[in-house]
């Protein structure tokens, strides 16, 4: 019951376009989020996910509009609470593939409090953070990942706070699958998304997804020279120390899976416990009521 391995129905092989909903995105032309949603369609088709067993959950922000563009179940919740809603969906239907999408503001400002707990639980779901280092939807205020010294609408003399490193944070709170990719590379993205969805446990993918309107053209171009796409075999994903090294200290900005750990998921554990509680059979309400007889 708890197996989250995507339902595969070989009789019917979906194509990327099968996951596309006929609704015009509100995004600006050139927004990085188009790439992310396209990569998602591809991942879904690659895994041939059945749409009745797929739910995309988000908060509020430009990036959080994604569920609206996926032809499956979706929840465009309130700002910062996507992980809580997704947790509910997964607890209720462990057979559903749950993908959470949202922005840096949504996930790391107002939603920060939920991320470490999603990690600790290790429910089998995938969190894709579309990081444009700005609040897009509200038109250009600094976000928790905005670079130090950068000028934005709310830091006109430069941001005096230090940005969060989302990947480092994910490692430190025990996420069992941590990866980074970039919104301009659909192939890489969809490959990483695929591994993330296939991971048994909570997976986190950090996507650098540019905001053309409030961060200008080529937002991440200056990072390109530092970017390094990890080759298969180049990095031992089970090495926690090495994952830290690659995240914190390198001159290089590594793209790919940085860390992966095998661990029972929340539902697997809970089911063991539930069986233990039930001791063979479900109690009826009458049995429960009779416990109140003195």
């Amino acid at each position: 019951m708890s197996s989250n391995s995507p339902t595969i129905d070989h009789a019917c092989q979906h194509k990327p376009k099968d996951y596309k909903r006929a609704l015009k995105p509100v995004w600006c032309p050139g927004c990085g989020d188009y790439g992310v949603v396209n990569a998602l369609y591809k991942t879904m088709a690659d895994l041939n996910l059945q749409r009745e067993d797929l739910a995309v959950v988000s908060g509020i922000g430009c990036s959080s509009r994604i569920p609206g563009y996926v032809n499956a179940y979706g929840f465009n919740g309130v700002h910062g609470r996507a992980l809580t809603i997704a947790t509910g969906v997964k607890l209720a239907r462990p057979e559903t593939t749950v993908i959470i999408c949202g922005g840096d503001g949504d996930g790391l400002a107002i939603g920060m409090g939920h991320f470490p707990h999603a990690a600790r639980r290790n429910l089998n779901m995938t969190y894709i953070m579309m990081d444009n280092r700005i609040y897009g939807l509200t038109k250009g205020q600094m976000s928790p990942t905005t670079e130090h010294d950068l000028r934005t609408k709310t830091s006109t003399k430069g941001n005096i706070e230090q940005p969060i490193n989302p990947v480092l944070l994910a490692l430190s709170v025990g996420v069992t699958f941590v990866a980074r990719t970039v919104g301009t590379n659909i192939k890489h993205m969809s490959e990483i998304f695929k591994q993330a969805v296939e991971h048994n446990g909570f997976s986190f993918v950090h996507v650098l997804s540019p905001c053309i309107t409030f961060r200008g053209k080529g937002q991440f171009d200056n990072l390109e020279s530092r970017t390094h796409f990890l080759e298969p075999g180049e990095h031992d994903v089970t090495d926690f120390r090495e994952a830290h090294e690659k995240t914190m200290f390198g001159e290089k900005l590594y793209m790919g899976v940085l860390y992966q750990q095998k661990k029972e998921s929340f539902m697997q554990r809970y089911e063991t416990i539930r069986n233990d509680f039930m001791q063979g059979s479900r109690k009826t309400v009458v049995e429960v009521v009779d416990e109140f007889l003195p």
Partner: protein
Amino acid sequence: MECRDLTLAIVGSGGDGVVSAGEIIVKAAAHEGLHGFLLKSFGPQIRGGESSCKIRLSQDKILSIGEETRILMCYNWADYRRFKAEIPLHPNAVILSDEDDPVQDADVPVEFTEDMTWIKVPFKRLANEKLGNILTKNILSLGILCGMFSLPKRGVLDQIRKRFGKKRQEIIDLNMNAIKVGEDWVFAQELPKDHLRFAPYKESEPKLVLTGNEAASVGALWSGLEIFAGYPITPASDVMEWLEHHLPQTGGTMIQAEDEIASLGIVIGASFAGKKSMTATSGPGISLMSEMLGLAAIAEIPAVVINVQRGGPSTGLPTKTSQGDLLQACFTTHGDAPHVVLAPTDVRDCAAVTAEAFYLSEKYQIPVIVLSDQFVGQRYETVIRYELLREGIDKGYIRRYNRDVPAPEDCNENYLRYKYTDNHVSPMSFPGIKGAYYVASGLEHDERGYPTSDVDVHLDMHNKRHGKFEHIVNESFFRHYGHRDARLGILCWGSAKGPVHEAMLEAEEQYGIRTRCLIPTCLMPLDVERIQHFVDSCARVIIAEANYSAQFYRYLRTMVDVSRKRVRQLNVSDGQPLPVDLVKETIKEVHDELQ
């Protein structure tokens, strides 16, 4: 003197075992088929501070804790001083206190009357000398109570056996012996001939003993609860702690969330996914859930939220009761978001009303707040086993509902999640159902669920969401007591029922005043016509509740024409349940004014 109905208080410090003594008595009574009622109260210390129990035992149905205490068992006068305001004594009270409590007789914080009896008891000495274990003090006290006042001794012995059942035989024997030591001490005393005694009674079927929080949890299980998410908070944590094992035992899942926002987020997510879900919290938690509640309202997602009210504002008085969250329950979130507010009136009702919350929530796809409180949520009450759920079923107000899902032929690209329908409820799909995919959202949306800012659609959707109220009102229930033709009416809500009903009975018995009372279980939406009719057909109306700002009175006025002249507001806010005497005297006053 024999009484069919006794009030009793036990007061002491942490190690005194006050609470377990109290619980044993009530369960013993229940075991013999008697009615019981128990309130606990604690001082500010986290552990080991002063604690007290107020108990009522009766051969008839109990409505409230009863005003004045007939029997006070006090291990320590310093502790009693703290609770004095909460434990007023009956003019004929019998007081048992420890013979070597260091307080000087003159300093004992009791205004003795002639008719009171004060007996000094060697609690500690008996425990140490006769039993060699100071921890037996509370058990031997039970022996004293049984011996002196004819309390249900068989039940007490039985409870002791159950309680220590898993321990070594010596411990059971020690405690059984303690009862005997207590009794023997009493037999050695010379008691006045007509001293206070519980009247003889015939044993009957054992009754259930449970708290309102437990009853609410039972109601939820009965309705088919599958997912519970919660965050600890006094006085609501009991619900989560009880469900922690009972929910998986019955096949469901309980999760402790990182905060209250997450609790309700999880509930909404699970309900979106088609499972009956619930959370329970108290005032501060409800305040944090305000935004999420609006999400459930606009996305039309069933969700049940129990608020076990405590004293506010803010952190306030976490262990005291209050009915201070009514207006919040109705209006906490922004932007004309409709949701339902129900309130249970007693322990049994906690089960029935929670079940009703699920019924309405699932049927109308709307979030429901259940306004319980510390008084009803944490007190122990006896309930007839058959009545816990069954009675409500007979009366039609306990029902189950399984959510409407789209018909198979509607499960396609044209599925309209928010289709306009006659009763404003649209069949609701969820993950697992093929074809009827949609996106739930906090944005305004059209029938398909697509975001829109079209002014006309917005208005239509407001109409759809609020239109459900009309139908819910038609399904809503009232409790009513008293005489149909009485000119003096009382309106109250929630846990105020007990004290109000008792006061009505007393006013009739004592002063011959006939009254009637109407209590809506469903506070929002309100059956305005029914209440208007009640108000119009009374010469005067008392509106009674346990909060500071007369919230029920004000809330009623938003829709019901209740001119200030016709009404007597009775609202008290001191962390205590509404006092029966105050209600009774108010009835008398208003009645006299009417003459």
